């Protein structure tokens, strides 16, 4: 009965429609709107591409006077003295690469470990075992706990990336540096002959900067590596287990090699991020124009140089800083494009399987 009344009601509604209005081809105005909107979409897309070109051009053109004046000597000069108009950014280039590579080392070790931990579902398994002891593993509420814990852990690691870098800088300045200073100075007094410990940590320096930087790039590495590990075809894992491999023989012999391209792409992208990271380094690296391998010495990076010098730069110094920005742009562009390419190849390869 209810259905019948619904049908009559709908019939009445349909009869009440103005059919002329519904059944007509798009009016002239509608076709115009369609055309304009389509063109608008294309135009906006073109703006995005033009924006990149404009960005590079803008920085390049503003840097032109400095490029003419200092040439390539800018890249291997070691003094930065606005009073004598002597500019060289070798210490900054070295500092950028040194801090980023060190951060990459620690960030990858912990990031890939976290990715393995997440993709293997250790936490969920552990929770399931405990629930099973209490016979709750199929309980409508508790049974979902393992899944939820896994999701929580994943979100927590992603939250590491959500904390703004200036907050990490503040934390590094007031918590990390006082905390590691005694240990660093002990290392310096005991093993001062070793190049890495050749100076003492008197405040900001490379090690605190590297510490904070590796925390900041860890979520990138974990997210991309986890993706790569999860998309390894399950049959490979089953085959390895079926042949009697233990869990870690499977991980080291099958899963990691298969996912290696994706993981490598993630590591390269994280490297790009570390190279361009500014605030944490500007606050923690010490802003000293020094070419050093000591972990406890202050140094400088390209991004930190820009952040510290730009606000007070005079008209003469700005082209020079633009030149430094251009160098940073070139380095990060190359690294990021390489990383994107590796990831694309990895995705294409896993699709082909």
């Amino acid at each position: 009965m209810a259905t019948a009344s619904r049908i009559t009601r709908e019939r009445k509604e349909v009869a009440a429609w103005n059919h002329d209005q519904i059944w007509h081809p798009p009016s002239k105005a509608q076709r115009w709107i369609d055309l304009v909107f389509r063109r608008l979409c294309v135009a906006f897309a073109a703006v995005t591409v033009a924006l990149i070109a404009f960005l590079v051009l803008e920085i390049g053109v503003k840097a032109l006077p400095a490029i003419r004046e200092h040439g390539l000597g800018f890249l291997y000069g070691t003094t930065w003295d606005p009073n004598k108009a002597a500019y060289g950014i070798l210490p900054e280039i070295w500092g950028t690469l040194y801090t980023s590579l060190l951060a990459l080392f620690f960030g990858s070790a912990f990031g890939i470990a976290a990715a393995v931990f997440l993709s293997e579902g250790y936490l969920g398994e552990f929770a399931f075992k405990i629930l099973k002891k209490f016979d709750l593993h199929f309980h409508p509420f508790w049974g979902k706990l393992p899944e939820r814990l896994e999701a929580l852990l994943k979100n927590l690691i992603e939250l590491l990336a959500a904390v703004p870098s200036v907050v990490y800088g503040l934390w590094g300045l007031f918590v990390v540096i006082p905390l590691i200073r005694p240990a660093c100075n002990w290392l310096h007094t005991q093993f001062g002959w070793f190049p890495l410990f050749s100076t003492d940590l008197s405040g900001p320096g490379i090690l605190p900067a590297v510490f904070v930087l590796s925390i900041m790039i860890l979520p990138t590495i974990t997210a991309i590596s986890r993706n790569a590990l999860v998309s390894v075809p399950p049959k490979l894992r089953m085959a390895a287990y079926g042949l009697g491999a233990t869990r870690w023989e499977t991980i080291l012999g099958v899963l990691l090699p298969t996912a290696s391209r994706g993981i490598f792409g993630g590591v390269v992208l994280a490297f790009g991020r570390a190279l361009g990271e500014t605030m944490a380094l500007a606050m923690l690296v010490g802003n000293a124009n020094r070419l050093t391998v000591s972990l406890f010495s202050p140094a400088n990076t390209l991004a930190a140089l820009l952040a510290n010098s730009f606000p007070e730069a005079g008209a003469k110094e700005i082209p020079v800083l633009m030149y430094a920005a251009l160098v940073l742009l070139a380095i990060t562009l190359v690294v990021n494009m390489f990383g994107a390419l590796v990831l694309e190849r990895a995705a294409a390869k896993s699709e082909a399987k």
Partner: protein
Amino acid sequence: MSDRRPVPAKEPSNAETLLHRVEDQAVRDPFGGVDFAELELSLYRPRTMFSIVLSWIVGGMTLLALIPLFAVLWMLVWRGGRKLSLALFTQLPPAPLEQGGGFGNAILGTLIMVGLATLITIPLGVLTGVFLAQAGESKLAGAVRFSAKVLTGFPSILAGVFAYGAIVLATGGYSALAGGIALSILMLPTIILTSESAIAMVPAKMKEASIGLGATGTQTVWMVLLPTAMPGILTGVMLAVARAAGETAPLLFTALFSNYWLASNGRVDLMQPTASLAVLIYNFSGMPFKNQVELAWAAALVLVVLVLITNLIGQSFSRQQVNQ
């Protein structure tokens, strides 16, 4: 006589001998050569021990990686929370050696600049996303995707350098506008890529049904694709907003900082130096005054809460999409 040697039997090939040997073995002693003790899973066998130890190491490293997160949050609550009061949100930053004060203008400045950046980026990013989802594999689409990916890894300080060159030098002064534009460059790639994937995830049958009913492409986009993809797009927008709110580097020399409200003659003025929470934290953290450092911690707490809430809102949108 001597040439009538017996014909040797045909030598079986290697594979055949092997096969026979295996078959013989299998018939005579099905489990021969298998050491059953070897197959047993024992904790004290090196390979299993290795596996278990590595599992524990990986778990420990994951926990270690999470310690900084909790340490930062704990310090924020401990050092920033003590200072928290209503005055922080309404008063202006104090001069050196002055007590009290707040960062009302910095909160307002952050909101205005992020709002400005969002207003610029949403039309540009979402329509570019629509274009990408519709265009498929054209040359322009490839170029746009490439540009968006390049922008994703773009160092934030360079967005500031660009806005400095293009806007601060052109308009002759630091301004909220320059800050907003610098932030919008950082928001753009996130919004483009999430919009594209959200629109591409709308089931093809919905789009085909709409076009089959005679809707124009534009009507399909506005009445079918965008409403259906909205949760995904909003997630992208929220993530971009959260990232922009925490950015310091692009604001350092575009919006600079200001100790006063963003207004002149009683009206909001976007063309003057503007305070933001992030730059306030950076500036005050380097000062030798206790009051300023405490304010920096309180500002960091407010900033992190803002960013986390925006992130959570974004995630709740993406959950809606999963439930659909």
